[in-house]
């Protein structure tokens, strides 16, 4: 594991020695390009170890990862490395760690001691950590919570709901925004218009809240030349006139098209004729060439060409204007939303993941950087000084994140001190998050910004994939010419940094192949390009011939369950993944999971049962849910009972109680699957209950939409998009959906203005974009990015396989339908690249799967040996012997009989009425102060009682005094001398196994001459303020049991016979004594 390092020992300023001990003998800036599976984590962990060995304090190190798994893994690896090094040190065979200032054991100790201050975090949690200590600066309470995706969506929903409900000025603003957005083509549902827009553009807007950037005036002015075509009608007429001369039989058609032609504003699918005319338009000459009109080629004469050119300009201008309008509408929608969103964040004390970097950036907004003082304050609050930065998966860092990070790291980069360092590991080839802001160019930027030596390294030996898999990857991506020809600039950029991979797993060969499925497999070919409108009309599910071939492939060849393999089918789009998973499930190829996630609330009968019960409870009108429930085994009887009890259960026990109740009613025994789902449902409910919400509709949404992530599983097939598979590895991988051409995904174009600035624009139709040079350029830029990213996606997909890789594409349509050659508009598909690089010579049919041909093959299908470590010593040590410990000694809760009549719970709230209990407590306290009614002990009471103003304390003292001085009670406070007097004594006792805990108000104990007890009187003071009608009888009835217990305790304590103990209730208010006869208080 020797690492060759170019060490640059850097001189240290003297005062720095105190921090690091010794000079750092490692590279201060290190950039590592690590291809897939080559051990990025390992590299990073090694770096941390090096830092530690150099004497760096652990809390000065910040390592940033993208996933929590990675963070944990790095921690483990650091520990393992230190342990290994310490062990070799121990045996004396330690490698000399260069300038290692600290031995491995000491480093390990230091590392463990600093655990709580260790910054080994995901980038998100790092940001949150910082924001959390800035409540003053951000206005967010320190205790803010983080919203998960579900909660963020719920918040968005509710804010949008508010927006749609609010009247007045807000409504007018919204109406204006919507008007701009729809340009007169309002749909039925504002919600369906706005909700998707928010989820699509909200993040982007947060980063770019400057409204002027969104389709602002400047853009419109820059792109639309001074002279405008305004008279569409006139143009149309003139063309009509000329057309009737030139092509009389198209005149009527032209007439009929009037409305469509004049209305075109670059939105939606344009009429064929418009597209044709626009395509023939040449922006330079400003005129049109020949075009097709209802299958007839029309060659315009020069005048007509010019007229048509003007018509095209008319469309272009209108479209551009409309696009600007739409963009501005969007911006004003987002602007309005933003205000609400921010208010909600502050008042709810919650933020979403993406808010943290933004907040942090805003802290540094003034003056372009985090000002030194603020940073000092933050560092103080964090108890940290971060000098060494390490970044994992650097290519995924988004611009937005980087702009926030830069505030913190910038100094480390620029610093020339030897005490700070930066380390990045990443792989531009895996930057598949461009669509959400990942920016692979940052890597280069850092390198250029860094002053001083930058150490670079490239890793291309895979520890994940076996040689056959790597072979295929090398063949596909090693062909510079194919990449360039198919992908243009993007391909060139890709090829520039390519280095052939190698596999470190030389023991086994693995297997890889490229397969094509003929269109003769009996299924209609996949219909591409039906992006919209599929919903309403198409009944038939779109399917691809690849589907059934895949089923066979998995069932006959991969056999994951039988061979105990983890297996993934990787596709590019969510829709495909969903469809394919459905299909595989229906074909029963085993357990199939979508996106490594399951939806316990929606993917099984139990989840639906819970949903049905709740839905019919909350909306009795939903006869569908109710019918479903009645048709379930719970049946009609349950329905009616449920209607009565459901709410009580919900509010008493939460959703967890509801789930338990419903599932508990099922009499059918559940199989393994059912049991597992039942557990997951319970857990979901339990988690939801933590929020304290009892909102049924919200819970139902949660139940339906909330996934549970599953770890890698053997035997199951996971269908997922490549994006979800990033960072994962599988024994066998099938890569499909390779025949889709690249589409530009983002509708937002970044348009460079002549003056240098850039603006954002909701792109109009492609036909329009290509005819406006600035837009065309912007689109090209976007396309290049997109193409590059597509290559990354393919690369990531192919490198997920450990042992077996199956690349499956649909055979291209017959030669006749070859796309028009030379037309660059046909975007490349992955299949094109695969065919170019992998197909050479003959293919052979795949034996087990009809219609499938093998075009490329490496390695062989062997029997997989289970990796060691996975099937570890299984349960053995886990099995528990029966344990027979004795129950703990004290396991009773004491029974404390009620001493006073307490107010009923509800009566606490009677306004202005002091609580009876509190009064009682005070009176007892006063009475307990007096042992004997002599002047000395009564004096303080008198003093209190006579104080003004009179509050409860004074009242209590007066009541006590009246009682003590009354005739009836006199004797109580003047017992014969020699009497032992207990006042207000708590006691404990066990009575027939019951633990009794109480307080004796007053006990007089009379002794035999020999000092042993002879008899006793038990006085119990009562402060009941009840009217006297029911009188003593009532009092007796109320306290008979309590006093009985007390007397019984006293019997046990004193060993007196029960007759020797009198029990007397002292009714303080009316000053009455009530003797409790022993027979009634039979001992227990």
């Amino acid at each position: 594991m020797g690492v060759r390092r170019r060490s640059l020992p850097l001189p240290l300023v003297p005062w720095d020695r105190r921090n690091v001990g010794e000079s750092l003998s490692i590279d201060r800036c290190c950039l590592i390009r690590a291809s897939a599976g080559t051990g990025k984590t390992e590299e990073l962990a090694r770096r941390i170890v090096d830092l530690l060995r150099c004497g760096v304090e652990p809390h000065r190190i910040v390592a940033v990862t993208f996933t929590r798994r990675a963070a944990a893994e790095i921690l483990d690896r650091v520990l393992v490395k230190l342990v290994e090094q310490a062990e070799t040190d121990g045996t004396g065979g330690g490698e000399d760690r260069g300038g290692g200032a600290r031995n491995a054991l000491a480093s390990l100790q230091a590392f463990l001691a600093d655990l709580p201050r260790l910054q080994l975090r995901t980038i998100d949690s790092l940001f949150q950590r910082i924001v959390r200590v800035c409540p003053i600066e951000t206005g967010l309470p320190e205790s803010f919570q983080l919203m998960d995706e579900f909660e963020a969506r719920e918040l968005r929903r509710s804010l949008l709901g508010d927006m749609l409900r609010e009247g007045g000025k807000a409504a007018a603003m919204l109406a204006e925004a919507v008007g701009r957005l729809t340009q007169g083509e309002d749909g039925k549902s504002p919600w369906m218009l706005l909700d998707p827009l928010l989820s699509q553009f909200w993040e982007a807007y947060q980063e770019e809240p400057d409204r002027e950037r969104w389709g602002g005036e400047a853009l419109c002015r820059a792109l639309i030349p001074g002279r405008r075509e305004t008279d569409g009608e006139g143009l149309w007429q003139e063309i009509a006139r000329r057309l009737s001369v030139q092509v009389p039989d198209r005149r009527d058609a032209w007439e009929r098209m009037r409305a469509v032609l004049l209305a075109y504003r670059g939105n939606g699918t344009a009429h064929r004729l418009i597209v044709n005319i626009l395509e023939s338009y040449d922006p330079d000459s400003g005129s049109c060439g020949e075009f097709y009109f209802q299958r007839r080629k029309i060659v315009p004469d020069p005048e007509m060409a010019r007229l048509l050119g003007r018509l095209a300009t008319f469309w272009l201008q209108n479209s551009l204007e409309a696009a600007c309008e739409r963009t501005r509408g969007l911006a004003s929608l987002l602007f309005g939303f933003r205000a609400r969103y921010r208010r909600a964040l502050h008042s709810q004390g919650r933020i979403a993941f993406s808010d943290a970097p933004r907040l942090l950036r805003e802290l540094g907004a003034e003056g372009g950087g985090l000002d030194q003082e603020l940073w000092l304050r933050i560092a103080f609050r964090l108890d940290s000084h971060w000098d060494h930065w390490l970044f994992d998966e650097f290519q995924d860092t988004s611009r937005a994140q980087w702009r926030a990070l830069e505030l913190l790291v910038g100094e480390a980069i620029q610093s020339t001190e030897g005490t700070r360092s930066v380390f990045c590991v990443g792989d531009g080839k895996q930057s598949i998050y461009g669509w959400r802001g990942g920016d692979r160019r940052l890597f280069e930027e850092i390198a250029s910004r860094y002053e001083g030596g930058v150490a670079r390294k490239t890793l291309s030996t895979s520890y994940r994939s076996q040689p056959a898999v790597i072979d295929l990857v090398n063949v596909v991506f090693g062909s510079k010419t194919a990449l360039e020809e198919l992908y243009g600039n993007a391909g060139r950029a890709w090829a520039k940094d390519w280095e052939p991979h190698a596999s470190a797993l030389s023991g086994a060969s693995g297997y890889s192949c490229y397969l094509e499925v003929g269109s003769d497999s009996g299924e209609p070919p996949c219909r591409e390009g039906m992006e919209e409108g599929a919903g309403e009309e198409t009944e038939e599910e779109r399917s691809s011939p690849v589907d059934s071939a895949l089923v066979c492939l998995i069932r006959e060849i991969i056999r994951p369950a039988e061979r105990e393999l983890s297996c993934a089918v990787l596709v590019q789009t969510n829709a495909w993944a969903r469809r394919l998973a459905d299909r595989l499930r229906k074909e029963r190829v085993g357990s199939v999971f979508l996106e490594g996630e399951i939806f316990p609330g929606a993917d099984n009968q139990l989840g639906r049962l819970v949903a049905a019960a709740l839905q019919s409870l909350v909306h009795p009108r939903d006869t569908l849910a109710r019918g479903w429930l009645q048709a379930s085994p719970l049946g009609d009887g349950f329905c009616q009972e449920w209607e009565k009890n459901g709410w009580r259960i919900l509010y008493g026990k939460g959703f967890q109680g509801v789930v338990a109740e419903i599932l508990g009613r099922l009499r059918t025994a559940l199989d393994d699957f059912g049991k597992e789902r039942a557990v997951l449902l319970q857990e979901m409910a339990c988690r939801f209950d933590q929020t304290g919400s009892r909102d049924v509709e919200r819970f139902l949404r949660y139940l339906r939409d909330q996934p549970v992530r599953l770890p890698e599983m053997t035997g199951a097939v996971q269908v997922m998009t490549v994006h979800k598979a990033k960072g994962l590895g599988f024994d066998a991988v099938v890569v499909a959906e390779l025949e889709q051409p690249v589409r530009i995904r983002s509708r937002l174009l970044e348009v460079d203005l002549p003056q240098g600035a850039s603006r954002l624009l909701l792109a109009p139709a492609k036909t329009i974009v290509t005819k406006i040079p600035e837009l065309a350029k912007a689109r090209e830029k976007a396309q290049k990015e997109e193409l590059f990213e597509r290559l990354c996606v393919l690369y990531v997909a192919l490198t997920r396989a450990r042992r077996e890789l199956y690349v499956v594409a649909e055979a291209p349509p017959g030669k006749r339908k070859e796309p028009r050659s030379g037309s660059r508009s046909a975007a490349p598909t992955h299949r094109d690249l695969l065919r170019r690089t992998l197909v050479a010579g003959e293919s052979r049919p795949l034996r087990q799967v009809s219609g499938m041909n093998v075009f490329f093959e490496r390695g062989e299908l062997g029997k997989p040996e289970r990796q060691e470590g996975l099937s570890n010593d299984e349960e053995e040590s886990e099995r528990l012997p029966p344990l027979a410990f004795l129950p703990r000694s004290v396991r009773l809760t004491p029974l404390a009989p009620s001493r006073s009549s307490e107010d009923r719970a509800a009566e606490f709230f009677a306004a202005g009425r002091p609580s009876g209990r509190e009064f009682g407590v005070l009176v007892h306290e006063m009475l307990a102060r007096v042992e004997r009614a002599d002047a000395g002990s009564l004096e303080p009471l008198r003093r209190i009682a006579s104080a003004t103003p009179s509050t409860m304390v004074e009242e209590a003292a007066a009541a006590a005094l009246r009682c003590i001085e009354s005739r009836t009670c006199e004797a109580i406070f003047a017992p014969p001398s020699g009497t032992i007097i207990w006042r207000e004594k708590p006691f404990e006792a066990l009575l027939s196994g019951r633990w009794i805990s109480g307080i004796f108000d007053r006990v007089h104990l009379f002794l035999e001459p020999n000092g042993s007890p002879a008899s006793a009187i038990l006085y119990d003071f009562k402060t009941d303020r009840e009217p006297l009608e029911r009188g003593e009888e009532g009092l007796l009835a109320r306290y008979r049991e309590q006093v009985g217990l007390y007397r019984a305790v006293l019997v046990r304590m004193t060993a007196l016979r029960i007759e020797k103990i009198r029990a007397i209730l002292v009714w303080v208010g009316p000053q009455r004594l009530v003797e409790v006869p022993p027979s009634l208080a039979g001992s227990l």
Partner: protein
Amino acid sequence: MRPERTFLGWNQPLPALAAEWLLDRAGGCGCLDLSRWLLIVPTRQSGRTLRGALCLRRPEGFLAPRVVTPMELYGEGRSAAGKAAGPTARLWVWIQLLLSEEGGGENALFPREAFQPDFAWALRVAKSLCEAQDILSEGALSFARVREEGSHPEPELWLRLARLEERYRAILADGGLLDWMETRLEILRVASWNFDVDRVALVGCPDPHPLAVRLLERILRDEVCSVLIQAPEEVADGFDGWGRPDPAFWRRREMPFLPNTRIYAEEGALTSRAADLVAANRSWDAVTIGVCDSRLLPFLRLTLEERNISAFDPGGISASGSEWASLLADLRELLRQRNLASFRRLLCHPAAAGWLGLQQIGTERSFLLERLDRAASRTLAQDFQSAARQEPGLEPFVERAQRFLSEAEAEPLAAIRRLLEESFDGKGDAGSQRLLCEELELALEEMEALRSSAKRRLDAAEYLDLLIERICQQHLPEERPEEAVELRGWLELLWDDAPHLVLAGFQEGAVPEAIAHDFLLPSSFRERLGLRTNAQREARDAYLFEAIATQRSERGRIDVLAARFSREGEPLFPSRLLFRCPAAVLPERVRQVLDVRNAPQRHQPASTDSFPLVIGPLRWEGEKRISVTALRDYLACPFFFFLRRARRWEEFERLPEELNAREFGLLLHDVLADFGRADEMRECNQSEAIEAFLRDALRRELQQRFPEGTPPAVALQSRAIQGRLAAFSRMQAKEVRQGWKTLLVEAPFELRIGDWQLDGRIDRIDRDSEGRIRLVDFKSSERALNPEAAHLVASGKGQGPAAALFLWKGREFRWRDLQLPLYAAAWRLREASCPELRVAYLVLPKEREKAGVVEWQSWTRELEREAESCAARILQAVEEGRFWPPERSAEWDREPWRFWFDGRPAEIVAAAPGPLG
């Protein structure tokens, strides 16, 4: 007092050791008397345990000692100067300050450029400030004192805090309340307490609040306070005089690596191991689960519940999940939103039933909910009063809520009081109920005391916020089951004497616990201020760990369970206490800790259907009457038809903001029908005039639907309708110019087929100048539809019910809909001598220029007859109960049907056979 340490050893449980020690020192004549003893124990729960242990040793009974927790030494918080402010009062005052002018302005604690402070925000910050005060109280410090101490990089911040604190005290004083800290400092100064005792002992309390120790030190300087420590003499160096573990000693102390230590990959495995361990015991009473990380608690409970093991937490369960907390929250929502949703939620709340008079009036809740839904989707009204106006059944409840709202506006606190009284009435007097009531009452009193000094009047919702805050801090006692495993927090474990202890969640951050109050008091600053340090906490926990392990080493068992990932996927790490070992063995120890027990590779069970839906018998049981549109369902899927038309299963869709697609279509229809009925417009060929008429009609329709004003979202929708109407106007004008005139609109018809009656309504019937008739159906879907494609499809694709198939021009076709053909048939019945008949859609899609009349081009009489016979075939099949098997149809892929039947009804339903099948 001066401390005098006694080492009890640690081979036995602490309660037993302490009880023995005490009993040896009891006095009494005739009976055992401990009543002159004052015992200080860490928590109430440990006090109970001690009393129990004593009781078990002296079952005949004894006079009990006074048992208090350290801070109870300061008494009830009432001193000569006034009453100590409770938590609600403190929050109230801070909130006032944060929201009042002093909060903003130049010297504000929180500069307000970035945001507009509101109550909710202030509440959170106030909590944070109270927390800071509490932490500072460990050193008897206040904000002002901290400022004097200096050494903070932000002196201005502390100056502002100190100023605020001054005002905070003043406001409290106005309400006759004293700051918590002040009362204590006063007691400390006079060095007195209210206990009439002879002997004092601090028992098993390794981490008493520093203020309590201070008081002990001050009081009765010559007396002795016994300090009972569960540890042997040998480790005497490990404790200071008051029995607090010494950081230096415990940092060096090596901890054993217990044999039953397990590190799991995931928390789920951990909880289920804990449950296994409990289950392995003959008696659950022999086990305690030490819940080191409170996050685990709900999931532990869940796992135990799944195995039918009852659990008991002597500390009680948080009141935040109680129905009272949710009642207060629901009320608050009603006060804030005053909308239908919040009113609806209250109606559902059982605790509100009494107050709303649900039982009194005796209405079924489901009936009310149904009414509410109906009212809501009809009016889209946001406030509940106007929504309910149209549903007389709801009146009394609305009235009550309304009354509460207006009372709350006038006198918030009084209204809340009354409401609580009514709600708690008749709810029984269970201990937990009483506890809550007491707590709420105290909170109310505190707020009432302060009311007059308010700078900013709080409204009822804000008062409720404070009440909710208060009760959420409460723990309610739970019923102890017959036999149960106890769940206890880490700090309670020293006092636990169960022979088998399972430490669940022995994680870094939980043991030792990480205190985070970083914004004001980061840990190094706390240390500098002399507050409890992390090192002290770590020493305490090291001691606790050793003590609880050692006492079970001979006669018991201890399992230490930790995990590497939380359920949410957050990485975790086992407690650093596990690494307390000699340097030489550290590498080995690290390996042990990293040896994660993978849950045995989960083999996922293949999905199955836990039960089928039993639906049947598949029979048409109603009268033989059906609408024409219903036939479309049969053509799509007979089983779908059965559920929807025979069983009348219908989803309930409610969009709280806007009209749903159906209502949208209806509105458009109604407007167009108004137009069609207007004789004066019949021959109008001026689009502007038509449009003006339609705009008017739309306005009328809206007014009728929403007499209180059009909701904003509907206004947006009405603009969409206007757009479509404008397109319609142009198109209509053109049609009229071409000679088409409207003959009839909304013409209902009945069509008999066999002994069935088909109902329908033709949207519009036009006639042109040559007498041709055209039957038109309005279609308002977003995209333009073509009637032919909507009705017919070549039967190659997909299947369909047999009744739908037919041969035409030598090819096989399948009906998807029979609407227009049956309209034609019905019309022909009415006008027998009908000349040429055309059928068409009048499409009004989103894109205006595509609006227009789309005729069925290839329409023939033949198709009409075929459609009739298709209808007959369908009705025949319906009569015969041919509803099974389901077809693959898009209907099953549409929500919510897709959800309920998973897109595969054939597998989910076990249909009972119909009469024929």
